[in-house]
């Protein structure tokens, strides 16, 4: 007389069954006659079926990217793009905090440099014809670093600083174009100075708000 599989024996063969293996005749007979074991198989299959849903269920906090980015920049893996004619490069280095140039001197130097450059030809923005729309101007690497600092201290303000940095950059771009078109215009130069003053204000507000 053929001895039927016991529940224990059935369970020993479970892993293969749950993972989609072929049922042998004995297993099929036991499974059909034993509701407990067939239920067990069904339950385990459900667990296996649902498990892949856990793969991308959670989101890390923004801190992870911020710290990661800092490391990538510090190790030189993220390389800042070289852009000619970026006057802000003159004022801001990666470690800008201790060397932030006083407002008046920075803006005055900007005017002199732009005036000099405009004597010899239009600035790059006008040459390229690439004028950022007023409200979607790009952020440079120093801006992104500043935003990282803001995020690490007051994450809720990151969006505010980002929007306003873009506004300030758009102003600078428009003002540079204006100087390029009207190199002799004091008004255009004043506007450029105002634009740089505005960006400096944003930086100062962010830096001054870092914990002492």
């Amino acid at each position, binding site marked *: 007389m053929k001895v039927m599989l016991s529940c224990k024996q059935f369970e020993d063969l479970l892993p293969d069954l749950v993972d989609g293996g072929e049922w042998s005749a004995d297993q099929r007979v036991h499974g059909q006659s034993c509701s407990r074991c067939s239920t067990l198989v069904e339950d385990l299959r459900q667990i296996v079926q649902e498990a892949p849903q856990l793969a991308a269920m959670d989101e890390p906090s923004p801190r992870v990217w911020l710290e990661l980015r800092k490391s990538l920049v510090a190790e030189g893996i993220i390389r800042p793009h070289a852009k000619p004619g970026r006057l802000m490069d003159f004022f801001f280095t990666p470690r800008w905090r201790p060397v932030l140039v006083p407002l008046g001197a920075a803006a005055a130097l900007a005017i002199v440099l732009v005036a000099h450059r405009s004597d010899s030809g239009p600035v790059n923005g006008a040459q390229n014809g690439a004028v950022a729309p*007023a*409200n979607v101007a790009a952020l440079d690497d120093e801006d992104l670093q500043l935003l990282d600092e803001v995020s690490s201290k*007051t994450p*809720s*303000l990151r969006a*505010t*600083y980002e*929007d*306003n940095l873009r*506004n*300030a950059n*758009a*102003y600078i771009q*428009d*003002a540079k174009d*204006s100087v390029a078109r009207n190199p002799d215009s*004091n*008004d255009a130069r*004043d*506007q450029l100075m*105002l*634009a740089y*003053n*505005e960006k400096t*204000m*944003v930086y100062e*507000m962010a830096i*001054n*708000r870092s914990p002492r």
Partner: protein
Amino acid sequence: MSSSQRATQCIVLTAAVLAASLAAAQTQQEKRFNCGPRPTVSVINEYGPVAVHPGPGNVVVVRYILHSDKVEVDLSQSGDRITVESHLLQGSNSDRDQVDYEILLPAGSNVMVHSNSGLLSAENLRGDISVEGAATPVDLRTISEGHIHVKTLSGNIMLMDIRQVHVIANTVSGDVTLKNVDGPLVEVSSNNGKIHYDGDFGGSGSYKLSSHTGDIEAMIPATASVDVTASSDKGQVDNDFPLLPKQHSITIPQKGHSFVGIAGRAASSVLLRTFSGKIRLKQR
């Protein structure tokens, strides 16, 4: 007792318990500092409003409400310098962990206020006032003498009844409203917010209202004594005020983009300048 009466009792009881819990969650405190007639008071808040008013005598009174236990307040005095500073503790959240400040001080005090959120307001003062906030609206009223410096990123700025004060107000995307503001120097800038001036540009001062894309509107009385230059690179410029032509001017008027002119004795110089916003000068 009927079931509806029981239900009402339950609701009343629950409300009372909730109110008590809310009150317990907010801690109200007050601290006083004796000082001279012109102390320097600094309030550095992470989140929450700061209201500054004159108080009686030579005393600085700091009243504050802590909205959670994840923020603490440090108060210190060094002579006539009083510093009030909020610190967020670990696990804090900007939405909940704010401190509301009310400061009473001598009217001649020099005041420095900062907060990242919440209205920053001051009124009836005579000293130097410096206010800074990222997304904070600023409201300064009835200030005379001294200097006012205001900086915001996106907070709106309201300056009302500011007399004979040196004013510098800068915002990137906030609106600036000036009502009855005059002084030896008034410089206001906004990148894309609106600037609205309603006053007489009095005091033989120098007024500069500048923007990148924000509109600038100035309303002045017929008796204003001004030397006005208005220009916009790309925006529309309109003048609805009777100005006399100016004999010598650096700016060459360009219909629709700039105008120059004088009124009265041209006592105050007024420069309205925007890159691509609209400018309008109107008579009140």
